């Protein structure tokens, strides 16, 4: 067993075969494959399970016709752990290559060393970008309808967005709230017809199209929002208790922009073997250019990345 020694107060040096950054479906699947190839594997991830834990039910992962997102991800984590993968809950700040070795540094300065790296840090919910948004998270601004909808019993909520996630949030909220406004900046929804029709049929959902949330009012919690009509350029205030933001995701790949090639959306460019532009750095899941952001696809890509990393390690560690 290789040692993990504390060389100075904050600097914990560890030598791994493979460091996986991110603990969603891609990272956990990569960890399972790496561990089964007897690679000394570390998973660095703040959010075990990634975006999938926010899904109340997953209905399209083969072998599970209906399973809560967190349960599926908990199974994946335990699977990887059982096979010997190690987990640390750190946020990575920087990755540097020195010779053949990668040095991965987390926010507080701890350093982990490895022979190869898999980037699977996924995507984060896109924010509205209005003042005080972070301050009101948990006090009326939510990015997780399944977590927070039950707090809106007999209250009024706004859902922002036009995709499936926004429609699902509105439909869920409509079960609790007395009124739900669904605010979308376009004329048409991107969401599936079935969901849109369900929303239109409910008397407590009011759809506001061609509009966006410009700001909100509130002291400790939210009590109102201002909604701007994009076409008529008018603005109005609506009394609400909370805002659910469902406007897609962004990839926070800035910290690797000097390491690997990214596309114009910040997605990591990979080839069919999940190799990035940097030898020894592999990538998988929602953070990459691979289309269709799905749990099963991320898991498959993670497996491929781990197998590619294994081939690379066989050469580099000789």
């Amino acid at each position: 067993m290789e040692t993990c020694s504390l060389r100075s107060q904050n600097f914990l040096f560890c030598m791994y075969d493979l460091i996986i950054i991110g603990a969603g479906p891609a990272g956990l699947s990569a960890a399972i494959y790496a561990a089964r190839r007897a690679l000394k594997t570390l998973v660095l991830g703040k959010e075990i399970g990634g975006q999938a834990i926010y899904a109340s039910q997953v209905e399209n992962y083969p072998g599970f016709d209906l399973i809560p997102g967190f349960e599926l991800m908990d199974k994946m984590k335990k699977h990887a752990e059982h096979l010997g993968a190690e987990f640390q809950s750190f946020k990575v700040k920087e990755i540097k290559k020195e010779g053949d070795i990668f040095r991965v540094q987390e926010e507080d300065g701890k350093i982990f060393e490895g022979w190869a790296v898999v980037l699977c840090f996924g995507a984060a919910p896109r924010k509205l970008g209005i003042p005080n948004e972070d301050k009101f998270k948990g006090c009326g601004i939510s990015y997780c309808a399944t977590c927070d909808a039950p707090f809106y019993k007999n209250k009024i909520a706004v859902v922002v967005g036009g995709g499936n996630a926004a429609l699902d949030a509105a439909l869920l909220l409509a079960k609790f709230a007395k009124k739900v406004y669904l605010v979308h900046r376009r004329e048409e929804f991107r969401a599936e017809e079935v969901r849109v029709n369900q929303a239109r049929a409910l008397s407590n959902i009011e759809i506001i199209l061609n509009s966006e949330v410009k700001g909100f009012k509130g002291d400790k919690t939210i009590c109102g929002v201002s909604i701007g009509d994009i076409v008529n350029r008018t603005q109005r205030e609506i009394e609400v208790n909370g805002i659910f933001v469902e406007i897609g995701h962004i990839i926070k790949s800035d910290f690797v922009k000097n390491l690997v090639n990214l596309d114009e959306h910040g997605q990591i460019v990979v080839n069919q073997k999940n190799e990035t532009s940097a030898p020894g750095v592999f990538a998988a899941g929602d953070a990459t250019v691979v289309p269709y952001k799905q749990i099963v696809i991320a898991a498959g890509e993670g497996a491929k990345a781990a197998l590619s990393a294994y081939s690379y390690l066989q050469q580099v560690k000789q």
Partner: protein
Amino acid sequence: MPEIILTDQNFEDEVLKSSVPVLVDFWAPWCGPCKMMGPIVEEVAKRFEGKPAKVAKLNVDEAAATAEKYNIMGIPTFKIFKGGEVVDEFTGVQSKEEIVKRLEKTLQ
């Protein structure tokens, strides 16, 4: 389990009248991120064993009156109480280190 389980009945004694800071994890069984935080909060509790701080969990369904009193609108939410007052609070998934850091700060 090293965490204290809070109810509407014991909240005052365990939290408000506590002589040491108390980290309260507001959670619910239907909240995926909350359940994922479960083992992390447990590790935090173990880390503070023998130290002048407590770690507690409050199920917002079972202790609904307390959750409402503290205006919980989203979970997981963490509040640190000291001398009966909220001295720090944060919402969403956190790393173990982040929670430890924030609780340690209140010990000073």
